[in-house]
Protein backbone atom coordinates (compact mmCIF):
# COMPACT_ATOMS: atom_id res chain seq x y z
CA UNK A 1 0.00 0.00 0.00
CA UNK A 2 1.34 3.41 -0.88
CA UNK A 3 1.85 5.72 2.04
CA UNK A 4 1.92 9.08 0.33
CA UNK A 5 -1.12 11.00 1.38
CA UNK A 6 -3.74 12.48 -0.90
CA UNK A 7 -3.22 16.00 -2.14
CA UNK A 8 -4.39 18.89 -0.05
CA UNK A 9 -7.53 20.32 -1.56
CA UNK A 10 -6.86 23.94 -0.81
CA UNK A 11 -7.14 26.81 -3.25
CA UNK A 12 -6.50 25.08 -6.54
CA UNK A 13 -5.71 26.28 -10.00
CA UNK A 14 -8.53 26.17 -12.50
CA UNK A 15 -6.96 23.18 -14.24
CA UNK A 16 -6.68 21.17 -11.02
CA UNK A 17 -10.22 22.09 -10.05
CA UNK A 18 -11.42 20.89 -13.43
CA UNK A 19 -9.52 17.60 -13.11
CA UNK A 20 -11.00 17.09 -9.64
CA UNK A 21 -14.50 17.75 -10.92
CA UNK A 22 -14.08 15.21 -13.73
CA UNK A 23 -12.77 12.62 -11.26
CA UNK A 24 -15.70 13.12 -8.91
CA UNK A 25 -18.21 13.00 -11.76
CA UNK A 26 -16.66 9.78 -13.00
CA UNK A 27 -16.91 8.23 -9.51
CA UNK A 28 -20.51 9.38 -9.12
CA UNK A 29 -21.51 8.19 -12.60
CA UNK A 30 -20.16 4.68 -12.00
CA UNK A 31 -21.91 4.57 -8.64
CA UNK A 32 -25.21 5.83 -10.01
CA UNK A 33 -25.14 3.45 -13.00
CA UNK A 34 -24.80 0.37 -10.79
CA UNK A 35 -27.29 1.71 -8.27
CA UNK A 36 -29.98 2.42 -10.81
CA UNK A 37 -29.56 -0.35 -13.32
CA UNK A 38 -27.72 -3.04 -11.40
CA UNK A 39 -25.62 -5.79 -12.90
CA UNK A 40 -28.41 -8.25 -13.58
CA UNK A 41 -29.92 -8.82 -17.06
CA UNK A 42 -29.36 -5.82 -19.37
CA UNK A 43 -27.60 -3.75 -16.73
CA UNK A 44 -26.38 -0.41 -18.01
CA UNK A 45 -28.23 -0.87 -21.31
CA UNK A 46 -31.39 0.04 -19.40
CA UNK A 47 -30.09 3.61 -19.45
CA UNK A 48 -31.31 3.77 -23.06
CA UNK A 49 -33.79 0.87 -22.78
CA UNK A 50 -36.07 2.59 -20.31
CA UNK A 51 -36.65 5.77 -22.38
CA UNK A 52 -36.94 3.61 -25.52
CA UNK A 53 -39.79 1.62 -24.00
CA UNK A 54 -41.55 4.85 -23.01
CA UNK A 55 -41.14 6.32 -26.49
CA UNK A 56 -42.33 3.12 -28.19
CA UNK A 57 -45.37 3.01 -25.92
CA UNK A 58 -46.26 6.60 -26.68
CA UNK A 59 -45.68 6.06 -30.42
CA UNK A 60 -48.11 3.11 -30.32
CA UNK A 61 -50.74 5.09 -28.41
CA UNK A 62 -50.49 8.06 -30.75
CA UNK A 63 -50.73 5.80 -33.80
CA UNK A 64 -53.86 4.17 -32.41
CA UNK A 65 -55.34 7.55 -31.52
CA UNK A 66 -54.50 8.95 -34.97
CA UNK A 67 -52.98 11.99 -33.35
CA UNK A 68 -51.28 13.68 -36.28
CA UNK A 69 -53.04 16.60 -37.90
CA UNK A 70 -55.02 15.45 -40.93
CA UNK A 71 -53.45 18.07 -43.20
CA UNK A 72 -49.91 16.99 -42.28
CA UNK A 73 -47.80 14.51 -44.16
CA UNK A 74 -45.54 13.67 -41.23
CA UNK A 75 -45.78 9.94 -40.41
CA UNK A 76 -47.19 9.49 -36.92
CA UNK A 77 -44.33 7.29 -35.65
CA UNK A 78 -41.77 9.87 -36.74
CA UNK A 79 -43.85 12.55 -35.07
CA UNK A 80 -44.04 10.59 -31.82
CA UNK A 81 -40.33 9.68 -31.76
CA UNK A 82 -39.22 13.28 -32.26
CA UNK A 83 -41.87 14.62 -29.87
CA UNK A 84 -41.59 12.24 -26.96
CA UNK A 85 -37.79 12.07 -27.09
CA UNK A 86 -37.76 15.85 -26.68
CA UNK A 87 -39.97 15.59 -23.60
CA UNK A 88 -37.56 13.09 -22.06
CA UNK A 89 -34.80 15.69 -22.42
CA UNK A 90 -36.34 18.34 -20.19
CA UNK A 91 -38.72 16.40 -17.98
CA UNK A 92 -36.66 13.43 -16.80
CA UNK A 93 -33.50 15.30 -15.87
CA UNK A 94 -35.45 17.77 -13.75
CA UNK A 95 -37.45 14.98 -12.11
CA UNK A 96 -34.35 12.94 -11.28
CA UNK A 97 -32.52 15.96 -9.94
CA UNK A 98 -35.49 16.95 -7.79
CA UNK A 99 -34.89 13.94 -5.54
CA UNK A 100 -31.09 13.81 -5.94
CA UNK A 101 -30.03 15.80 -2.90
CA UNK A 102 -32.29 14.01 -0.45
CA UNK A 103 -31.02 10.63 -1.67
CA UNK A 104 -27.34 11.57 -1.84
CA UNK A 105 -26.80 14.02 1.02
CA UNK A 106 -24.48 11.64 2.83
CA UNK A 107 -22.03 11.82 -0.06
CA UNK A 108 -21.27 15.39 0.91
CA UNK A 109 -19.19 13.95 3.76
CA UNK A 110 -16.58 13.52 1.06
CA UNK A 111 -15.55 17.13 0.73
CA UNK A 112 -14.67 16.76 -2.96
CA UNK A 113 -18.27 15.89 -3.70
CA UNK A 114 -20.36 19.00 -4.13
CA UNK A 115 -24.09 19.46 -4.56
CA UNK A 116 -23.55 20.44 -8.19
CA UNK A 117 -21.71 17.14 -8.86
CA UNK A 118 -24.66 15.16 -7.54
CA UNK A 119 -26.98 17.12 -9.84
CA UNK A 120 -24.72 16.95 -12.91
CA UNK A 121 -24.38 13.18 -12.55
CA UNK A 122 -28.10 12.66 -12.84
CA UNK A 123 -28.44 15.19 -15.67
CA UNK A 124 -25.68 13.47 -17.68
CA UNK A 125 -27.32 10.07 -17.22
CA UNK A 126 -30.78 11.27 -18.22
CA UNK A 127 -29.65 13.26 -21.23
CA UNK A 128 -27.26 10.49 -22.28
CA UNK A 129 -30.03 7.89 -21.99
CA UNK A 130 -32.56 10.00 -23.89
CA UNK A 131 -30.01 10.72 -26.63
CA UNK A 132 -29.09 7.04 -27.07
CA UNK A 133 -32.76 6.11 -27.11
CA UNK A 134 -33.50 8.75 -29.76
CA UNK A 135 -30.59 7.69 -31.98
CA UNK A 136 -31.42 3.97 -31.76
CA UNK A 137 -35.15 4.42 -32.37
CA UNK A 138 -34.73 6.93 -35.19
CA UNK A 139 -32.14 4.70 -36.91
CA UNK A 140 -34.40 1.68 -36.58
CA UNK A 141 -37.49 3.43 -37.94
CA UNK A 142 -35.50 4.98 -40.79
CA UNK A 143 -34.18 1.52 -41.61
CA UNK A 144 -37.66 -0.01 -41.86
CA UNK A 145 -38.93 3.08 -43.66
CA UNK A 146 -41.40 4.40 -41.06
CA UNK A 147 -39.38 7.55 -40.62
CA UNK A 148 -37.86 9.74 -43.35
CA UNK A 149 -34.16 10.66 -43.39
CA UNK A 150 -33.49 14.04 -41.74
CA UNK A 151 -33.57 16.93 -44.20
CA UNK A 152 -31.04 19.09 -42.35
CA UNK A 153 -28.96 17.13 -39.85
CA UNK A 154 -27.22 20.23 -38.50
CA UNK A 155 -30.57 21.75 -37.57
CA UNK A 156 -31.64 18.50 -35.90
CA UNK A 157 -28.46 18.59 -33.82
CA UNK A 158 -29.04 22.28 -33.03
CA UNK A 159 -32.55 21.53 -31.79
CA UNK A 160 -31.31 18.59 -29.76
CA UNK A 161 -28.43 20.53 -28.19
CA UNK A 162 -30.81 23.37 -27.29
CA UNK A 163 -33.20 20.88 -25.68
CA UNK A 164 -30.27 19.39 -23.77
CA UNK A 165 -29.26 22.83 -22.57
CA UNK A 166 -32.81 23.63 -21.55
CA UNK A 167 -33.11 20.29 -19.74
CA UNK A 168 -29.82 20.93 -17.92
CA UNK A 169 -30.65 24.49 -16.92
CA UNK A 170 -34.16 23.56 -15.79
CA UNK A 171 -32.80 20.65 -13.76
CA UNK A 172 -30.18 22.90 -12.12
CA UNK A 173 -32.86 25.42 -11.18
CA UNK A 174 -35.23 22.75 -9.82
CA UNK A 175 -32.38 21.03 -7.98
CA UNK A 176 -31.28 24.30 -6.41
CA UNK A 177 -34.88 24.90 -5.37
CA UNK A 178 -35.09 21.56 -3.56
CA UNK A 179 -32.05 22.54 -1.49
CA UNK A 180 -34.07 25.46 -0.16
CA UNK A 181 -37.43 23.77 0.23
CA UNK A 182 -38.88 20.30 -0.23
CA UNK A 183 -42.03 21.97 -1.53
CA UNK A 184 -40.23 22.49 -4.86
CA UNK A 185 -40.08 18.74 -5.44
CA UNK A 186 -43.78 18.38 -4.69
CA UNK A 187 -44.64 21.25 -7.04
CA UNK A 188 -42.39 20.05 -9.84
CA UNK A 189 -44.17 16.75 -10.52
CA UNK A 190 -47.66 18.21 -11.16
CA UNK A 191 -46.04 21.06 -13.12
CA UNK A 192 -44.20 18.59 -15.36
CA UNK A 193 -47.43 16.68 -15.88
CA UNK A 194 -49.28 19.82 -16.93
CA UNK A 195 -46.44 21.12 -19.10
CA UNK A 196 -46.30 17.94 -21.18
CA UNK A 197 -49.42 18.61 -23.31
CA UNK A 198 -48.27 22.22 -23.84
CA UNK A 199 -44.65 21.39 -24.67
CA UNK A 200 -45.08 20.97 -28.41
CA UNK A 201 -44.44 17.24 -28.31
CA UNK A 202 -47.92 16.36 -29.54
CA UNK A 203 -48.56 19.25 -31.93
CA UNK A 204 -46.90 21.67 -34.31
CA UNK A 205 -47.34 25.29 -33.29
CA UNK A 206 -48.76 26.05 -36.74
CA UNK A 207 -51.75 23.78 -36.09
CA UNK A 208 -52.91 25.96 -33.20
CA UNK A 209 -55.13 29.05 -33.43
CA UNK A 210 -53.07 32.27 -33.72
CA UNK A 211 -53.82 33.47 -30.18
CA UNK A 212 -52.78 30.20 -28.61
CA UNK A 213 -49.54 30.08 -30.64
CA UNK A 214 -48.19 33.15 -28.83
CA UNK A 215 -49.03 31.70 -25.43
CA UNK A 216 -47.43 28.34 -26.15
CA UNK A 217 -44.28 29.98 -27.51
CA UNK A 218 -43.61 31.40 -24.05
CA UNK A 219 -42.42 27.89 -23.15
CA UNK A 220 -38.76 27.52 -24.21
CA UNK A 221 -38.93 23.79 -25.03
CA UNK A 222 -41.57 24.43 -27.71
CA UNK A 223 -38.92 26.31 -29.71
CA UNK A 224 -36.48 23.40 -29.39
CA UNK A 225 -38.99 20.86 -30.67
CA UNK A 226 -39.94 23.11 -33.59
CA UNK A 227 -36.27 23.48 -34.60
CA UNK A 228 -35.75 19.72 -34.30
CA UNK A 229 -38.78 18.93 -36.48
CA UNK A 230 -37.93 21.57 -39.07
CA UNK A 231 -34.52 19.94 -39.33
CA UNK A 232 -35.99 16.48 -39.64
CA UNK A 233 -39.05 17.01 -41.84
CA UNK A 234 -38.10 20.18 -43.73
CA UNK A 235 -40.83 22.61 -44.72
CA UNK A 236 -43.69 20.12 -44.69
CA UNK A 237 -45.20 22.20 -41.92
CA UNK A 238 -44.38 25.88 -41.31
CA UNK A 239 -42.49 26.17 -38.01
CA UNK A 240 -42.44 28.91 -35.40
CA UNK A 241 -39.42 29.43 -33.21
CA UNK A 242 -36.94 31.95 -31.92
CA UNK A 243 -33.52 30.50 -31.18
CA UNK A 244 -32.45 33.70 -29.40
CA UNK A 245 -35.44 33.62 -27.06
CA UNK A 246 -34.81 29.99 -26.15
CA UNK A 247 -31.10 30.66 -25.56
CA UNK A 248 -31.93 33.65 -23.36
CA UNK A 249 -34.31 31.55 -21.25
CA UNK A 250 -31.68 28.80 -20.89
CA UNK A 251 -29.01 31.31 -19.96
CA UNK A 252 -31.16 32.88 -17.24
CA UNK A 253 -32.07 29.45 -15.84
CA UNK A 254 -28.43 28.28 -15.96
CA UNK A 255 -27.00 31.33 -14.22
CA UNK A 256 -29.86 31.48 -11.72
CA UNK A 257 -29.52 27.76 -11.03
CA UNK A 258 -25.74 27.92 -10.55
CA UNK A 259 -26.06 30.90 -8.21
CA UNK A 260 -28.77 29.22 -6.15
CA UNK A 261 -26.78 25.97 -5.95
CA UNK A 262 -23.79 27.94 -4.70
CA UNK A 263 -25.99 29.59 -2.08
CA UNK A 264 -27.64 26.28 -1.20
CA UNK A 265 -24.24 24.73 -0.45
CA UNK A 266 -24.08 26.89 2.64
CA UNK A 267 -27.45 25.75 3.84
CA UNK A 268 -27.32 22.02 3.29
CA UNK A 269 -27.80 20.13 6.55
CA UNK A 270 -26.92 16.48 6.75
Amino acid at each position, binding site marked *: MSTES*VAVTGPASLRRAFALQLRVLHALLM*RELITRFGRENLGVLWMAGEPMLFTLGVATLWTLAGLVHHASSIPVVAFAVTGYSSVLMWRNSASRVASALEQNKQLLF*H*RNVRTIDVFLTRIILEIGGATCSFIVLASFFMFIGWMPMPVDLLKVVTGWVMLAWFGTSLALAIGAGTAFSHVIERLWHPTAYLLFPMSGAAFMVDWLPKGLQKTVLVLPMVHGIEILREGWFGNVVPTHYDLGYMAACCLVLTLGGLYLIHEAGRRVEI
Partner: protein
Amino acid sequence: MLSIEHVSKAYSTRHGRHKVLDDVSFQLERGGHIGILGRNGAGKSTLIRLIAGAERPTSGVIRRGMSVSWPLAFGGAFQTHLTGLDNLKFVCRVYGVDYRPRIPFVEQFTELGKYFREPVARYSHGMLTRLAFALSMAIEFDCFLIDEAMVVGDARFHERCHYELFDKRRDRAFILVTHDANVIKTYCRNACVLHEGQLLAFPSVDAAYDFYLATLKENPVIVEQ
Protein backbone atom coordinates in the same frame (compact mmCIF):
# COMPACT_ATOMS: atom_id res chain seq x y z
CA MET B 1 -1.92 23.24 9.79
CA LEU B 2 -5.65 23.06 10.34
CA SER B 3 -7.11 26.28 11.61
CA ILE B 4 -10.63 26.76 12.96
CA GLU B 5 -11.27 30.48 13.37
CA HIS B 6 -14.28 31.91 15.22
CA VAL B 7 -16.60 29.24 13.90
CA SER B 8 -20.26 29.39 14.86
CA LYS B 9 -23.08 27.16 13.68
CA ALA B 10 -26.78 27.73 14.17
CA TYR B 11 -29.68 25.62 12.94
CA SER B 12 -33.18 26.85 12.43
CA THR B 13 -35.78 25.04 14.48
CA ARG B 14 -39.50 25.54 14.85
CA HIS B 15 -38.71 27.69 17.88
CA GLY B 16 -36.21 29.98 16.18
CA ARG B 17 -32.46 29.72 15.72
CA HIS B 18 -30.58 27.25 17.85
CA LYS B 19 -26.89 27.97 18.25
CA VAL B 20 -24.89 24.75 18.54
CA LEU B 21 -21.37 26.18 18.26
CA ASP B 22 -20.51 29.65 19.48
CA ASP B 23 -17.21 31.22 18.39
CA VAL B 24 -15.05 28.09 18.43
CA SER B 25 -11.36 28.51 17.58
CA PHE B 26 -8.41 26.16 17.66
CA GLN B 27 -5.43 25.10 15.61
CA LEU B 28 -3.90 21.75 14.90
CA GLU B 29 -0.34 21.30 13.65
CA ARG B 30 0.70 18.53 11.29
CA GLY B 31 1.01 15.39 13.39
CA GLY B 32 -0.77 17.04 16.32
CA HIS B 33 -3.34 15.11 18.35
CA ILE B 34 -6.29 16.73 20.03
CA GLY B 35 -9.04 15.08 22.04
CA ILE B 36 -12.45 16.65 22.43
CA LEU B 37 -14.72 15.61 25.28
CA GLY B 38 -18.32 16.61 25.46
CA ARG B 39 -21.52 15.14 26.72
CA ASN B 40 -24.32 14.06 24.39
CA GLY B 41 -25.70 16.98 22.43
CA ALA B 42 -22.74 19.25 23.12
CA GLY B 43 -22.13 19.71 19.37
CA LYS B 44 -19.27 17.25 18.85
CA SER B 45 -20.73 15.74 15.71
CA THR B 46 -21.61 19.18 14.36
CA LEU B 47 -18.01 20.27 14.85
CA ILE B 48 -16.79 17.14 13.04
CA ARG B 49 -19.21 17.75 10.15
CA LEU B 50 -17.95 21.32 9.78
CA ILE B 51 -14.27 20.34 9.90
CA ALA B 52 -14.96 17.56 7.38
CA GLY B 53 -16.54 20.18 5.14
CA ALA B 54 -19.85 18.37 4.86
CA GLU B 55 -21.62 21.47 6.18
CA ARG B 56 -20.52 25.09 6.19
CA PRO B 57 -20.25 27.21 9.32
CA THR B 58 -22.82 29.96 9.83
CA SER B 59 -19.91 32.31 10.47
CA GLY B 60 -16.16 31.94 10.83
CA VAL B 61 -13.54 30.22 8.70
CA ILE B 62 -11.98 26.77 8.54
CA ARG B 63 -8.57 26.69 6.84
CA ARG B 64 -7.22 23.33 5.80
CA GLY B 65 -3.50 23.41 5.14
CA MET B 66 -3.45 19.63 5.13
CA SER B 67 -5.78 16.98 3.78
CA VAL B 68 -8.56 16.15 6.20
CA SER B 69 -10.43 12.84 6.20
CA TRP B 70 -14.17 12.34 6.17
CA PRO B 71 -15.43 11.31 9.64
CA LEU B 72 -13.71 8.03 10.31
CA ALA B 73 -15.65 4.81 9.76
CA PHE B 74 -18.60 6.79 8.45
CA GLY B 75 -20.66 4.29 6.49
CA GLY B 76 -23.71 6.42 5.74
CA ALA B 77 -22.59 7.04 2.18
CA PHE B 78 -22.63 3.33 1.34
CA GLN B 79 -24.93 2.55 -1.50
CA THR B 80 -26.58 -0.75 -0.64
CA HIS B 81 -26.67 -1.99 -4.25
CA LEU B 82 -22.92 -1.60 -4.48
CA THR B 83 -20.52 -4.27 -3.30
CA GLY B 84 -17.73 -3.64 -0.81
CA LEU B 85 -15.33 -3.49 -3.75
CA ASP B 86 -17.55 -0.98 -5.60
CA ASN B 87 -17.53 1.24 -2.54
CA LEU B 88 -13.73 1.01 -2.35
CA LYS B 89 -13.52 1.99 -6.03
CA PHE B 90 -15.86 4.89 -5.38
CA VAL B 91 -13.86 6.50 -2.57
CA CYS B 92 -10.59 5.90 -4.44
CA ARG B 93 -11.97 7.63 -7.52
CA VAL B 94 -13.27 10.55 -5.46
CA TYR B 95 -9.83 11.04 -3.88
CA GLY B 96 -7.90 10.31 -7.06
CA VAL B 97 -5.94 7.22 -6.05
CA ASP B 98 -5.66 3.80 -7.66
CA TYR B 99 -7.93 1.25 -5.97
CA ARG B 100 -6.08 -1.89 -7.09
CA PRO B 101 -3.13 -1.81 -4.66
CA ARG B 102 -5.60 -1.20 -1.80
CA ILE B 103 -7.71 -4.30 -2.34
CA PRO B 104 -5.49 -6.70 -0.32
CA PHE B 105 -5.47 -4.44 2.75
CA VAL B 106 -9.25 -3.93 2.70
CA GLU B 107 -9.90 -7.65 2.15
CA GLN B 108 -7.54 -8.61 4.94
CA PHE B 109 -8.80 -6.02 7.43
CA THR B 110 -12.53 -6.50 6.82
CA GLU B 111 -12.35 -10.32 6.78
CA LEU B 112 -15.33 -10.20 4.45
CA GLY B 113 -14.24 -13.14 2.30
CA LYS B 114 -16.52 -13.63 -0.67
CA TYR B 115 -18.87 -10.98 0.73
CA PHE B 116 -16.40 -8.31 -0.38
CA ARG B 117 -17.88 -8.81 -3.84
CA GLU B 118 -21.51 -9.01 -2.67
CA PRO B 119 -23.91 -6.03 -2.37
CA VAL B 120 -23.58 -4.14 0.91
CA ALA B 121 -27.32 -4.74 1.48
CA ARG B 122 -26.41 -8.32 2.48
CA TYR B 123 -23.88 -7.26 5.14
CA SER B 124 -24.36 -7.58 8.88
CA HIS B 125 -23.83 -4.53 11.05
CA GLY B 126 -20.37 -5.72 12.05
CA MET B 127 -19.35 -6.26 8.43
CA LEU B 128 -20.50 -2.73 7.58
CA THR B 129 -18.48 -1.21 10.40
CA ARG B 130 -15.35 -3.11 9.37
CA LEU B 131 -15.75 -2.05 5.75
CA ALA B 132 -16.34 1.58 6.74
CA PHE B 133 -13.21 1.61 8.88
CA ALA B 134 -11.07 -0.11 6.24
CA LEU B 135 -12.17 2.39 3.57
CA SER B 136 -11.20 5.24 5.88
CA MET B 137 -7.74 3.68 6.16
CA ALA B 138 -7.46 3.06 2.42
CA ILE B 139 -7.05 6.77 1.71
CA GLU B 140 -4.01 8.31 3.37
CA PHE B 141 -4.94 11.66 4.89
CA ASP B 142 -2.76 14.07 6.85
CA CYS B 143 -5.46 14.47 9.47
CA PHE B 144 -8.11 11.99 10.56
CA LEU B 145 -11.43 12.93 12.12
CA ILE B 146 -12.44 10.31 14.62
CA ASP B 147 -15.78 10.02 16.35
CA GLU B 148 -15.26 7.11 18.74
CA ALA B 149 -18.99 6.45 18.91
CA MET B 150 -18.94 5.42 15.23
CA VAL B 151 -16.40 2.68 15.75
CA VAL B 152 -18.56 0.11 17.46
CA GLY B 153 -17.36 -3.46 17.67
CA ASP B 154 -15.86 -6.13 19.86
CA ALA B 155 -12.56 -5.83 21.76
CA ARG B 156 -10.55 -7.44 18.97
CA PHE B 157 -11.94 -5.03 16.38
CA HIS B 158 -11.12 -2.08 18.65
CA GLU B 159 -7.61 -3.35 19.10
CA ARG B 160 -7.09 -3.66 15.35
CA CYS B 161 -8.56 -0.20 14.74
CA HIS B 162 -6.28 1.32 17.35
CA TYR B 163 -3.29 -0.43 15.83
CA GLU B 164 -4.08 0.85 12.31
CA LEU B 165 -4.76 4.35 13.51
CA PHE B 166 -2.60 5.11 16.48
CA ASP B 167 0.41 2.88 15.79
CA LYS B 168 0.75 2.67 12.03
CA ARG B 169 -0.40 6.25 11.49
CA ARG B 170 1.16 7.80 14.58
CA ASP B 171 2.71 10.56 12.47
CA ARG B 172 -0.67 11.84 11.28
CA ALA B 173 -2.73 14.49 12.95
CA PHE B 174 -6.08 13.56 14.40
CA ILE B 175 -9.06 15.03 16.13
CA LEU B 176 -10.59 12.50 18.48
CA VAL B 177 -14.08 12.99 19.79
CA THR B 178 -15.10 10.63 22.56
CA HIS B 179 -16.70 10.00 25.93
CA ASP B 180 -13.80 7.83 26.94
CA ALA B 181 -11.04 9.73 28.74
CA ASN B 182 -8.71 6.73 28.69
CA VAL B 183 -8.47 6.80 24.91
CA ILE B 184 -7.67 10.51 25.02
CA LYS B 185 -5.14 10.04 27.82
CA THR B 186 -3.35 7.35 25.86
CA TYR B 187 -3.16 9.12 22.52
CA CYS B 188 -3.56 12.89 22.99
CA ARG B 189 -1.35 15.57 24.47
CA ASN B 190 -4.13 18.15 24.47
CA ALA B 191 -7.76 17.89 25.43
CA CYS B 192 -10.67 20.27 25.19
CA VAL B 193 -14.24 20.13 26.41
CA LEU B 194 -17.13 21.24 24.27
CA HIS B 195 -19.62 22.79 26.63
CA GLU B 196 -22.64 24.97 25.85
CA GLY B 197 -21.35 25.76 22.38
CA GLN B 198 -17.89 26.81 23.56
CA LEU B 199 -14.68 24.90 23.18
CA LEU B 200 -12.73 25.13 26.44
CA ALA B 201 -9.01 24.37 26.49
CA PHE B 202 -7.27 22.82 29.50
CA PRO B 203 -3.62 22.57 30.46
CA SER B 204 -3.80 18.82 30.91
CA VAL B 205 -5.99 15.93 29.85
CA ASP B 206 -6.79 15.24 33.51
CA ALA B 207 -8.05 18.77 34.09
CA ALA B 208 -10.24 18.50 31.01
CA TYR B 209 -11.65 15.19 32.17
CA ASP B 210 -12.44 16.56 35.65
CA PHE B 211 -14.32 19.43 34.11
CA TYR B 212 -16.12 17.04 31.74
CA LEU B 213 -17.23 14.89 34.69
CA ALA B 214 -18.54 17.99 36.41
CA THR B 215 -20.61 18.95 33.38
CA LEU B 216 -22.19 15.50 33.45
CA LYS B 217 -23.42 16.09 36.98
CA GLU B 218 -24.88 19.49 36.20
CA ASN B 219 -27.99 18.16 34.60
CA PRO B 220 -28.01 14.40 35.01
CA VAL B 221 -31.51 13.92 33.61
CA ILE B 222 -30.50 14.17 29.97
CA VAL B 223 -27.22 12.35 30.33
CA GLU B 224 -27.11 8.86 28.93
CA GLN B 225 -24.38 6.62 30.24
